[in-house]
């Protein structure tokens, strides 16, 4: 396992797509871990057989770090993500988000914790079909704060503009392309300033070009906003935008790569 150095500067040129992005350099100096898991396992009983979906996984993610969680189908990636999102309790081990042991929380507190501290982008059905683009993003703020304040409204609008959706603010989800819908989902996952941003196969239903655009935006925003981000993906090509790759096989961490050259070689060999 290769640990990320405590202080490192990441400078990445961001290619322009059909949206405007600036060339940004990010200096990461934090040593605080936002996500920490200690020997986390999840097992299910199927008939008489005990299935270990996740088996003794320990990981740490710092603010501003973007992790690609990869592996074959059934390797436990989504189950791991569900535990990090406080949607599932581990059978063994512990998950800490910002120092809080989330599996110890009662259900009602877990819902609130998710609302306040975690942003999520799903593979599909991300958006509420009867709310406009802007309303979908504002929804996250309404859930967190109970009502929408002007500052929140400005932030939602600002994020969407940065994501190139200025002219689609009042469109409904069915009026958007797949890539545009995922960008809205990304905006929603960040608008309430969570410490952790999770994405489950955000590019699964997108063509290659759109997929690159979405992941690139995602990575940029995670770095800019200094969030801890984890993306589960089948498509190893998307790992060119991550800071670290964790590969799971049969519920365990098989490989962890943090050097750019190692990551690019991993992608090319896949």
């Amino acid at each position, binding site marked *: 396992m290769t640990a990320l150095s405590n202080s490192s500067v990441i400078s990445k040129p961001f290619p322009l797509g059909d949206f405007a992005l600036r060339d940004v350099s990010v200096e990461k100096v934090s040593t605080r871990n936002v996500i920490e898991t200690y020997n986390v396992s999840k097992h299910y009983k199927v008939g008489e057989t005990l299935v270990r979906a996740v088996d003794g996984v320990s990981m740490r993610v710092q603010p501003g770090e973007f992790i690609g969680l990869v592996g074959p189908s059934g390797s436990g990636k989504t189950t791991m993500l569900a535990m990090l999102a406080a*949607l599932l309790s581990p059978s063994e081990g512990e998950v800490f988000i910002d120092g809080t042991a989330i599996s110890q929380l009662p259900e009602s507190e877990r819902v609130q914790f998710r609302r*306040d501290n975690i942003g*999520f982008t799903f593979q599909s059905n991300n958006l509420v079909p009867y709310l406009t683009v802007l309303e979908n993003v504002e929804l996250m703020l309404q859930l967190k704060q109970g009502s929408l304040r002007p500052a929140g409204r400005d932030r939602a609008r600002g994020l969407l503009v940065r994501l190139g959706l200025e002219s689609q603010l009042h469109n409904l989800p069915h009026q958007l392309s797949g890539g545009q819908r995922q960008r809205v989902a990304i905006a929603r996952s960040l608008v309430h300033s969570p410490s952790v941003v999770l994405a489950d196969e955000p590019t699964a239903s997108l063509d290659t070009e759109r997929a690159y655009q979405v992941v690139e935006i995602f990575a940029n925003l995670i770095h800019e906003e200094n969030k801890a981000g984890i993306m589960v993906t089948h498509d190893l090509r998307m790992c060119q935008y991550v800071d670290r790759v964790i590969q799971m096989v049969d519920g365990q961490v098989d490989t962890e790569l943090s050097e750019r050259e190692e990551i690019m070689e991993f992608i090319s060999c896949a």
Partner: protein
Amino acid sequence: MAVYLAFKEIWRNRTRYFLFSLVIALITTLVLFIAALAVGLATANKQYLEVLNTDLLAFQENTDLQITTSQIGWSKLNDIRRVDGISDMGAIGYSRGSLVFEDGREPIDVSLIGVEAGRPGSPEVIDGRSIRTIRGNEVVIDENAVKQAGIAIGDEVVIKVIQGTTEEFYTLRVVGTTQAQQYLFAPSIFLPFQTWDRVRPQPVRGGNPNREQAANMVAIRLQEGADLETVSTRIEAQVSDLQVVDKATAIEAIPGYTAQQSTLNTQRSFTLLIGLLVIGGFFQIQTLQKVPQIGVLKAIGASNRIVAISVVSQITIITLIGVAIGSLVTLLLAMVMPDVVPVVFEPQAIVFQILGLLLIGPLGGLVAVRLTTRIEPLTALGVSS
């Protein structure tokens, strides 16, 4: 937040939800119409007894309180009058006849009610004067007769009855009108008792001169403070062959009244049940179609409470709209309904029905609410717990 989501979803899918609210509107119209029919039929049956200014009613024993078969001899009336606790009483005779018209209009079936002037049973007039004589050719008619026959005070009316085997016609003058007092589905015409005894249908023309004059029913008013139960028992003990009851009991005994009302009440209850099932079914299907969406909402932090309130709000809004439309349609129907249709829209009954209809929405939607709360946020990830 929850109500906001409910409103938004209804607005975006307004055609679908409006169509469903029309279904609720139809159910509402049906329930209100059946309720009005129940009141109307009940009124047509019992209106006279309901407005009768009396405390007790006496019938011949063993006649099941049937006014058409009860016969109380005149001698018994004096015995009743002597019972302690009674302030006044009046003999009432009942028979059927037809109001016929010279201009060839269809005859109208009427209840001929013989009363003693100024005694219990005699109607309160709202126009003209009340009956004053014992055997005069004067009548007081109720508002239903006025409406149906177009009769006014001072007019002469012709009543046709069968005496023996022949039709007999009697011309009487209208001296007053009283509030609507239908009895046994016919408008009422009040006559002096002796006139009624002369006019009423009899097996032999002119009747049997040797027979004792009899009333079908006696209206009894008690002294102030007298107990109904005590006085009725006293009357039955002191005067033979009598059954004495209060008005409510007499109404319940009207032929077919109970069966008619229970049938209509059953229909109304079943219609409400159907409404409940229809609403429950519709929203359950709606919820099943939204399982992934609800899963995502919960995954991003919407609590069960928010999701459940959103569903209940939606159901309540749709039900409100449907009931409002249905009530409006019923109101319009009531305005164009011909008078011969026995529907009466009683405000209290209508309000009660509307409240019941508003309740079936949330009640029927409980299944959908339960389903909503059981959806796991993990469905957003395609994972099961």
